[in-house]
């Protein structure tokens, strides 16, 4: 019985436990990133295509010339040495140079970051508002036309890949109706926002559908719980019961599933940004892959993995606030 060991009220003793959990978590995250970096580095090392051929594009260099370039970029070193050099650089914030942009990789990625963050931020807002909102409506109006509409939209939305949504939105609202720009990032706050509307919708369609489904199911599960009937039997108004009990208890599954969706969303930004010609990290990744700019690819993959790991860690650490039955140990789930 945990009640015996974990003292009531739970205040005393919770701080150190939390700190320990956070530390353990950090160590786990570092390990994940290290393993990822190795996998990424080695898979690119093994990938077909020679970066040198790209560097000398258009010319036919002499064997000596080739050798100099190899030496200069360290391509002649054995694999472990090259990995170690790269890792050393990364730990000092140096991700190498981009062949494509003749710039430090850090600067290239950094300059593209704001556009992607804006896109992801707006999408998350849309997903949270419309996903949770539609889920609530569906659950509370179960079996009515409103619920049927929600279910239909969920089925359609979940089946539409983001790049298909991107193409459709762009041609209808961008090209034909001309309501939104169809290309680029925009200049200045308002213009940027205007530019990001269609991409954000395209990016959020699938995930909104998934969040709607989870919210609806979780709400219906909670509506059936006895504590809801108890609250009603005590004369608590229905609206308050929905908010304080049904939605509050449904929050656990909603947050858990949403956190899992983040990785898919980060990947989809590549397609959406490319479709709308946005200069973001996602379109940069596509470009770098196709042009074999491996340093950039490595940095972006690491960045995405880091973001994913960080978000999951945050969710795990904050989860006890949503469900106090889950001890603040991170690994308890």
């Amino acid at each position, binding site marked *: 019985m945990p009640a015996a060991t974990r003292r009531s009220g739970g205040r005393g003793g919770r701080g150190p436990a939390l700190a320990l959990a956070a530390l353990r978590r950090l160590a786990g995250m570092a390990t994940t990133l290290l393993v990822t970096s190795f996998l990424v580095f080695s898979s690119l090392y093994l990938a077909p295509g020679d970066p040198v051929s790209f560097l000398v594009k258009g010319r036919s260099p002499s064997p000596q010339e080739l050798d100099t370039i190899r030496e200069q970029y360290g391509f002649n070193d054995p694999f472990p040495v090259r990995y170690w050099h790269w890792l050393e650089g990364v730990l000092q914030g140096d991700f190498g140079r981009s062949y494509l942009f003749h710039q430090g990789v850090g600067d290239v990625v950094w300059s593209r970051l704001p556009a992607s963050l804006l896109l992801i931020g707006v999408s998350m807002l849309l997903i949270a508002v419309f996903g949770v909102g539609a889920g609530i409506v569906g659950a509370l109006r179960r079996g009515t036309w409103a619920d049927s509409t929600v279910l239909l939209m969920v089925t359609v939305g979940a089946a539409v890949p983001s790049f298909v949504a991107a193409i459709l939105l762009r041609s209808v609202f961008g090209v034909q109706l001309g309501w939104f720009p169809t290309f680029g990032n925009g200049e200045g706050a308002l213009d940027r926002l205007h530019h990001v509307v269609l991409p954000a919708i395209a990016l959020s369609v699938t995930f909104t559908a998934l969040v709607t489904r989870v919210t609806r199911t979780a709400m219906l599960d909670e509506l059936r719980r006895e504590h809801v009937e108890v*609250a009603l039997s005590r004369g*608590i108004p229905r609206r308050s019961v929905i908010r304080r009990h049904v939605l509050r208890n449904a929050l656990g599954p909603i947050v858990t599933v949403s956190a899992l969706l983040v990785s898919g969303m980060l990947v989809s930004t590549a397609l959406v940004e490319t479709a709308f010609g946005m200069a973001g990290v996602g379109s940069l990744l596509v470009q770098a892959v196709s042009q074999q700019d491996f340093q950039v690819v490595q940095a972006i993959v690491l960045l995405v993995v880091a973001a994913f790991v960080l978000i999951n860690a945050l969710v795990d650490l904050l989860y006890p606030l949503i469900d106090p039955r889950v001890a603040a140990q991170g690994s308890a789930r």
Partner: protein
Amino acid sequence: MALLDIDALSVTLPGMARPILDRIELTVAAGETVALVGESGSGKSVTARAALGLFPAGADLAGRVRVEDIDLVGADAARLREVRTGIAAMIFQDPRAGISPVRRIGDFLTEALRLVGGWSRARADARAAELLAAVGLPDPERHLRQFPHEMSGGMLQRVMIAAALCGEPRLLLCDEPTTALDVATQAEILALLGRLRRERDLGLLLITHDIELAAASCDRIYVMYAGRIVETATADELFARPRHPYTAGLLGSSPPQEGPLTRLAPIPGAPMSLLESATGCAFAPRCRFAEPGRCDQAPPVLEPHGAGRVACHRADELEPPVLAHLAPDSEDR
């Protein structure tokens, strides 16, 4: 005047072969302890919930439910709230399912006071602590800050009772308040309910499977079978001279409070489901006194016989000596 007066209440769900409740009558007066006994699925909980105006969704209602002269069938939300927050309250079978797991005990207790009564936080907390002390919890201030999973089942049932007392109700509906608890705790909770009834002059409706318990602790008993009240009398009378074959069977089948288990004689057969209907007496398939011809007509609703009232064609003939044969026949088993 009765505190609770249920008169000819029928509750019918569309698509079911028989009503969930069929012309139920039941009264509870101030200061009185009344038991409602019957097998699982006979409609005890539906009856108790009706006393709070909680009816199954989509059910057709007929008859009357009055609590202190407030008619609950078709009452508006404000009326229902008035009854639920100030006149009647319910204690449920499983306290762990009945209290939201993600909120503190203090939140649960003060919810109605603050949301409906408009009490300040401090005042509501003080009142909650007072109530926790009244139900015999040792450290009220600490319990207010605990989460449900940090308390034992017995403690949680006390919390439930405290919550029920919040609005100073005059009618307490107890739906199998001890079924989910171990034997020692059961006795404590029953003693607590008895004490509260005396101190506050409550009318108590106790729902239980255990007819011996009902006979030992209640003034009057209603016996329910397949949605109908089949017999009612004072506890002493019913215990000494059951007139309905089902009551006699229950008395024969429940283990005696003390002494050897010689009288244990379960009623053969299973209770009728909502999908089965009976043109005659619903108990006939299991009744050893069923008489072809007579018992395939529906028996009358409760009619006076002896000191109580019975719903059975053969109540006249089946005087207690006849039924008493049921009890000691365990030798031939």
